[in-house]
């Protein structure tokens, strides 16, 4: 028999190794799953992890990498702040949707005006919308002790209904032949978030993601705020003793992660998505949770994990088209990644000993 023995400290080598192990285990188990379903496992793995970057259609799929990774990284940066402090914002998806709606509202209100301030105003509105949606669980937790996990998660479904209402009601395109959905912002120059370099997939959201990564690194490792966040997560009583007020930290972390998710939503609606539709929320807010953990809540890790998760999105779609793999493939893969990561994490905190 084996038993687990706690380690005195988590070795850095294991902290780096477990995400890689998790990816490998996901490939192996995923391959086994495909084989059981009657697909060629090697071909499937190659289609998901290799072809999007270097395959015959990579010219189309490579830019998609940045398109998908941008919002994931942007959202994950904000989530990582809160997760470090033990504040669990599970509702980034809702904040993403509300941010998009608020940003789009500015554009639609200004339409068809052509002015330089429209896009900056949309950015502000998007961030403010996400912030406000994130502050709801913060206020409920601080005033009534409500679990921010449940409240933020439930608000996702509220946000989805609001998106549907907007698409069918107030924001419906008056020239859209009664189809649900707002005007397409891609076709409205003052509000559009176009590709900055042709065929790179980079839009303002990607720029914002890089800035967010740098800011996260600075706050977490150089600023007293990051120290307080880490202290609150590691030892709440010590944080209080140091002078941290927990309510402030809750408001800050949920507010900032909400604002970043809102920004991601705004860049998406003004760019790749183009319009508010009933199904605007596509799961970035949930996948970003995996990105944050897979990246060890560290900016560099989040960058790599964001790119990897983007790859599974694109690869999964490719596998659907090329091999007729089921649409749930991506979700299964992402779920397995988180599952294996949490499982292998035991190895960073414990060592396995053979029982005498």
């Amino acid at each position, binding site marked *: 028999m084996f038993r687990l023995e706690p380690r005195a400290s988590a070795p850095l080598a294991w902290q780096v190794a477990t995400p890689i192990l998790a990816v490998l285990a996901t490939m192996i188990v995923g391959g086994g799953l495909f084989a059981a379903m009657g697909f060629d496992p090697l071909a499937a793995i190659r289609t998901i992890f290799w072809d999007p970057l270097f395959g015959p259609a990579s010219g189309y799929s490579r830019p998609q990498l940045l398109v998908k990774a941008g919002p994931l990284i942007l959202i994950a940066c904000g989530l990582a702040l809160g997760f470090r402090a033990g504040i669990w914002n599970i509702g980034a998806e809702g904040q993403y949707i509300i941010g998009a709606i608020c940003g789009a509202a500015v554009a639609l209100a200004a339409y068809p005006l052509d002015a330089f301030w429209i896009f900056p105003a949309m950015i502000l509105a998007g961030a403010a919308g996400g912030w406000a949606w994130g502050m709801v669980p913060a206020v409920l937790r601080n005033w009534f002790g409500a679990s921010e996990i449940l409240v933020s998660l439930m608000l996702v479904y509220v946000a989805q209904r609001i998106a549907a209402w907007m698409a069918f009601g107030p924001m419906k395109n008056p020239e859209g032949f009664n189809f649900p959905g707002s005007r397409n912002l891609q076709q409205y120059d003052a509000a559009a978030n176009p590709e900055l370099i042709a065929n790179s997939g980079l839009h303002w959201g990607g720029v914002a993601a890089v800035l967010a990564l740098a800011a996260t690194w600075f706050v977490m490792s150089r600023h*007293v705020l990051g120290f307080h966040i880490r*202290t609150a997560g590691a030892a709440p009583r010590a944080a209080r003793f140091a*002078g941290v007020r927990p309510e402030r930290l809750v408001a800050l972390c949920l507010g900032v992660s909400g604002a970043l998710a809102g920004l991601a939503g705004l860049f998406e609606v003004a760019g790749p998505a183009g319009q508010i539709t009933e199904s605007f929320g596509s799961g970035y807010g949930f996948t970003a949770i995996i990105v944050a953990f897979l990246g060890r809540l560290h900016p560099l890790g989040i960058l790599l994990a964001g790119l990897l998760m983007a790859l599974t999105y694109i690869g999964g779609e490719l596998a659907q088209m090329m091999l007729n793999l089921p649409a749930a493939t991506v979700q299964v893969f992402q779920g397995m990644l988180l599952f294996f990561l949490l499982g292998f994490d035991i190895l960073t905190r414990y060592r396995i000993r053979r029982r005498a």
Partner: protein
Amino acid sequence: MTVSNVFRAEGLGKTYPGVRANDDISFAVEAGEIHALLGENGAGKSTLVKTIYGLVRPDEGRMTLLGAPYAPQDPRAARAAGVAMVFQHFSLFDAMTVAENIALGMENPPPRAELSRRIAELSRDYGLPLNPARRIASLSAGERQRVEILRCLLQHPRLLIMDEPTSVLTPQEAEILFATLRQLAGSGTAILYISHKLEEIRSHCDRATILRQGKLVGTVDPRAHSARELAAMMVGAEMRLVDRSGRKPGATVLKVRGLSTPAGEGMALKDVALTLRSGEILGIGGVAGNGQEELLAALSGETPTAPGTIALEGRDLSRAGPETRRRAGLLAAPEDRLGHAAVPEFSLAENTLLTAGARQGLIRRGLIDRKAASGFAQEIIRAFDVRTPGPDTAAGALSGGNLQKFVIGREVLGRPLVLVVNQPTWGVDAGAAAAIRQALLDLAAQGAGLIVISQDLDELLELSDRFCALNQGRLSAPRPTEGLTVEEIGLMLGGAHGMEVAHVPA
């Protein structure tokens, strides 16, 4: 006399890292007696009964039960040998009935009807009214304790250990309990009764074995001694001579008036008042759980209090947070090193940032100066002889004594106007304890005012100029330590009356 020994311990010893919990303990419990085990918190009562009940293996010494060698591997073996124990905290399932709970704890429970019949029979025989079909949730604390006692009695124990049984009982329930215990003793069962309620022991116990700091003081007839005398034996009569030279009480630095905290999970502070002068050490004694942690939290700023309750050099800090108070010169070191005074996962350098950020200039305009933090950690390590590889070592990797030296050193080097420490040498080996005490004395000699909260009376007598006791959240009026007798201290700590209401696990 030896013939009637049910239990005998000879030279029992147990050492934990840094603490000699039991040292050469020998005593015997006879059939038919109620034998009290008396001592302060940390005197070694818990370790001793855990040894008898098979939860702790002694390092040396031996035990006999009914004349035969007795060395239980675990509680199950202890129960099989005839030793039963009623814990202070009950382990019962609320949603189940009395009979179901008792059946759960048995190796081979008889059929339910048979068990219910035996429970009813026993409860009638011993005057412990209890209906086997009632749910635990509907029972009072006293009735729940009866379930635990009946559970033990069903095993027909020869030695019954009761851990502070009356702390959860009303006076009426306590009387019923003592009648039961007397009846049990009358039928030949030996009872080992742990408590620090002196009056209770004097009126109900046949003999008392007294422990102090892990050592046996003696076994006495409690009826032949006054509560004062018993308290003196518990607390210890030695007074150490200390050199208080170089310390001159100066102007008042800290004034606390009408300090009360709301009743929460812990003990509420009730109208606490104290005055502290510079260069003075005020010692606060008392059994843990009487408001010590709450007092430290109120002074450190973790719990804000009503305006006008805490003033440092005339400046009202009652509503100020910990960081404002530290900037003003009011520093504190909490009792719990891991997770309160320090973050175990963080390096020593990072742990300096918890309290020394502003006073040492380690954090300026929100930016952390890592080099300065590492340098300050190095300074603490050098000045306080902290045994560690260096400032990058995680705090949790240090031994208790070394981390405590680091925590105290961090605050002492912060040049406080007032320093409040809780249990500064708790769980620390003798060498480190002496170094910490010396550092506190030196700090006072340099003109700081100190409040030392401790359960170690020797420590308080050694350090403090004035002494007061914290009991049930109330602070007694201070008395000069000089000329204070141990009996007076015993009475201040609650004495005959206060001990009775101190509901504290040993």
